[in-house]
């Protein structure tokens, strides 16, 4: 029964030694691999900042009639969820292209409103900021008053019937023709 070790055959002592190292190594690896994955996960994910929020339906926005919409901006940052009530003006001229304006005057940040009539824009409809009489046209350009630049826009896209915004404001820029 007890054969003497021949050639390269592994002795009983070494076999047990290797078995212990092997099993120990397997158990360690089973624990270490998930820990490594867990530890490096922040760098391996492909998470991008911000999510698209559906704020309105196409059919909610009448053509040529700026519409103030309210929405909840819900941010999930790891385990902390913050909710902000926000609003925006949505404008469409053809029911296809929609522009979403940040609802604050570019002068000092007062909320502005839409005026169908009024002497400011020769009786034409316009955005009107009551703080310092900032007047904007429906396309956001400054007609008169102190605003330094056209209305800021909110990053938006249309998908199907849904108008969506992302938490990013594009500063208004005067389009030079």
């Amino acid at each position: 029964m007890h054969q003497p070790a021949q050639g390269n055959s592994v002795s009983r002592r070494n076999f047990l030694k290797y078995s212990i190292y092997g099993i120990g190594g397997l158990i360690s690896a089973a624990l270490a691999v998930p820990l490594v994955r867990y530890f490096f996960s922040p760098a391996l994910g492909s998470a991008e900042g911000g999510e698209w929020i559906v704020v309105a339906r196409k059919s909610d926005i009448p053509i040529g009639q700026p519409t103030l919409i309210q929405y909840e901006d819900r941010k999930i940052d790891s385990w902390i969820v913050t909710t902000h009530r926000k609003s925006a003006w949505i404008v469409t001229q053809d029911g296809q292209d929609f522009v979403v304006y940040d609802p604050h005057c570019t002068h000092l940040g007062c909320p502005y409103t839409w005026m169908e009539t009024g002497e400011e824009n020769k009786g034409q409809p316009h955005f009107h900021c009551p703080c310092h009489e900032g007047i904007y046209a429906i396309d956001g350009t400054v007609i008169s008053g102190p605003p330094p630049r056209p209305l800021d826009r909110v990053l938006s896209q249309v998908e199907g019937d849904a108008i969506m915004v992302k938490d990013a404001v594009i500063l208004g820029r005067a389009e030079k023709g």
Partner: protein
Amino acid sequence: MKASRNGRGGWLEERLDLRPLLSPLFDRKIPAGVGWFYTLGSATLLTFVILAVTGIFLSMNYSPSPDHAWDSIQYIDDQVPLGSLIRGIHHWSAAAMVLLVFLHMLRVYFMGAYKYPRELTWVVGVFLLLLVMGSGFTGYLLPWDQKAYWATTVGTRIAGAVPLIGEFVRKTLIGGPEVGPATLPRFYALHMLALPILIALLSGFHLFMVIRQGISAPPKRKEPSS
């Protein structure tokens, strides 16, 4: 070049000459008849190591505040890759450790292994038992769910029932008149700093004595004297 004392060993051994140091630790004489029951202490130590390692990783994504504790654990479970696995290992290792610690204690008790010269090992072991139970109790609160909250409320009120010093002990434990915002970081600090450090120190001492004194031989059946 000086080889290690017995002339064997690899690169590291040649430089550090560890064998004389480690040999008394690992190449100890084991009494005849020692079997699986004698592995319970080592198994307990293994669960402690696993708990310490997984605990370090869990603490990276845990927020010990009443506002965020539960949410952060949901985040570990649902969002972090393999987070639920790491938390599961921590959870089950904790249960296993309590079980193993008791089995280990029962083994030592029934085999009379606590007797001279090993009384001190036993006494240190009793303190280790208390520390392990303390770790379990403080860890139970950390998920900050209903079960955690009420288990802590009930557990600390049991401490509060002690005559004279009860209320003092209860308020000290939970950091206020009732379980609240101050309790959670208090338990967290105990759970992840104070108790593990004490367990590591005491189990080191525990193990040192086991190695110093050798493993006790299994008890022998006495010849009937009639």
